[in-house]
């Protein structure tokens, strides 16, 4: 059974770059990696998705190495409002496995 693990928590200061890793050793060939952000009392919200190499959008970058056994979400210049729980998701046909979640706290 595929497992998707993340660090439990991270602290950062405003303006810094934050990198959150996700380990997905048993990822299948057709699985994609997606990252979601969740604020308290809200549903998760899509951040970014990728298959391999690097993907960048207006809020984040996603790095997936060639072996695809891990991925790294990069948040440039975080602000206090980025304090949230971040989840990676390995998904393919009929399969959706969320990571354990990383609680990011951004300090002033």
């Amino acid at each position, binding site marked *: 059974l595929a497992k998707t693990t993340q660090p439990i928590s991270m602290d950062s200061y405003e303006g810094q770059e934050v990198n959150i890793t996700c380990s997905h050793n048993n990822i299948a060939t057709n699985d994609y990696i997606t990252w979601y952000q969740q604020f308290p009392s*809200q549903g998760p919200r899509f951040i970014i998705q990728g298959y391999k190499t690097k993907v960048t959008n207006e809020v984040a970058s996603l790095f997936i190495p060639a072996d695809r056994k891990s991925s790294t979400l990069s948040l440039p210049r975080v602000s206090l409002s980025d304090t949230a729980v971040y989840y990676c998701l390995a998904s393919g046909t009929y399969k959706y496995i969320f990571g354990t979640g990383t609680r990011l706290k951004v300090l002033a």
Partner: protein
Amino acid sequence: DTAVSQTPKYLVTQMGNDKSIKCEQNLGHDTMYWYKQDSKKFLKIMFSYNNKELIINETVPNRFSPKSPDKAHLNLHINSLELGDSAVYFCASSSGQGAKEQFFGPGTRLTVL
């Protein structure tokens, strides 16, 4: 307009009762999901429907029965509630199966006493 809505937002009930949670999406999506988030914040898929057909049914007790009357709705009925059913239940939708962006509802916090 809310994209994915759930009712009720909070549900407190006694063990042994039967309860339902309703979900509606106005995004025109054809795939809908139910997830359970436990007290440790782990998110686990329970069910997925595509065009009103059940396509994913994880190892969920058969006390949980999803029903999709049409593509825009996916309801969750729970029989004989147990203490361990206490959790936050999220509905989500996407435009197709597989690795598509999912849009989540606000969640329903279920507390079983």
